[in-house]
């Protein structure tokens, strides 16, 4: 579990943007992995199977929250206000790391919609192929491609805006 735990936890952290949600997501994903152990196809990538579970759980969780709080999920091309998901308790060290290195990219990443964030994390950070991302996200390659194009265009705009001297 240690081997995949760290990768899964970090992946979950990129998707959720906070450690508390990343912990819950990782935990739920591994319990699901344990339960569905027999349905895993040998010879396929174990990590991308876990990522697929994490992505599904993340989407379900967002749907659940949307239902509960009547939060509007942003459209694919609309920036999301990600601030609402960040828990109040963020340690000073995390704050520091985020200010030093994460800014402004982490912040921009947090402003993408869930699907856009997923596709950017999978394509650019995890460096999966479009085919693999389509399998993980359960959508077509065309959808992966268009989501990535829009997400990256939006990211660049957000980063450039943040870097512009005010």
């Amino acid at each position, binding site marked *: 579990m240690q081997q995949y735990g760290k990768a899964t936890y970090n992946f979950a952290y990129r998707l959720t943007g906070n450690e508390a949600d990343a912990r819950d997501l990782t935990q739920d994903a591994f*319990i699901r992995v344990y339960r569905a152990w027999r349905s895993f196809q040998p010879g396929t990538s174990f990590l991308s199977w876990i990522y697929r579970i994490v992505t599904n759980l993340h989407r379900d969780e967002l749907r659940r929250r949307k239902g509960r709080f009547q939060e509007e999920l942003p459209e694919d091309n609309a920036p999301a206000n990600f601030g609402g998901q960040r828990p109040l308790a963020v340690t000073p060290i995390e704050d520091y790391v*985020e200010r030093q290195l994460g800014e402004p990219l982490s912040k921009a990443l947090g402003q993408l919609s869930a699907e856009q964030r997923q596709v950017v994390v999978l*394509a650019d950070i995890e460096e999966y192929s479009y085919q693999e991302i389509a399998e993980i996200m359960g959508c077509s390659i065309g959808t992966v491609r268009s989501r990535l194009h829009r997400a990256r265009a939006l990211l*660049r705009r957000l980063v450039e805006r943040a870097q512009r001297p005010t």
Partner: protein
Amino acid sequence: MMEHLNNDFLIDYLHGQLPPEDDALAHAHLESCASCRGEYEAEAALGEALRSTARAEELEFPSMIAAEIWQQVRDARPSLASQLASLFRPAIAVPVAAVAVVALYFAAPLAQYAGTPAKHVSANYYLEEHAAQQAQNPLGERSPTAAQLIESSAADIGNAADLAAAADAPPLAMMAAADASR
């Protein structure tokens, strides 16, 4: 000179997701077009920035998560009761019920004998009956009284209670036994 490559095309090129002919086309174009190369480098820099940020922010896997997962997995392990209950799930219960029905069907005639307790029939009844028949038979060689029959058979067969215990033996066989004992 071909027109400039749009960013969507460059993003696919950057991720190595273009068909080979388009990939070769983009590669050739980027060699000669500074403007597109600049745009490509900006896209590549974004990818690099995302990865380096991710590396810088990389979190250690909290051991408490692993502990919590194992705890939940242990708790989720089915109890003995639910394992027993799982025996009654349709995949198992239906064939078992079918076999039971078939077995019952064939066993039913046997159960008529096996199921009802053997009647406590007194051996004396048969002996007296036999003696009466013998007495009425004018052609019989001998016609002993019931008392005589009982007396003579009691020595060999034991008491009547023992006979009663073996009452599921057909009456005829018992009569034969009584006869033989004489």
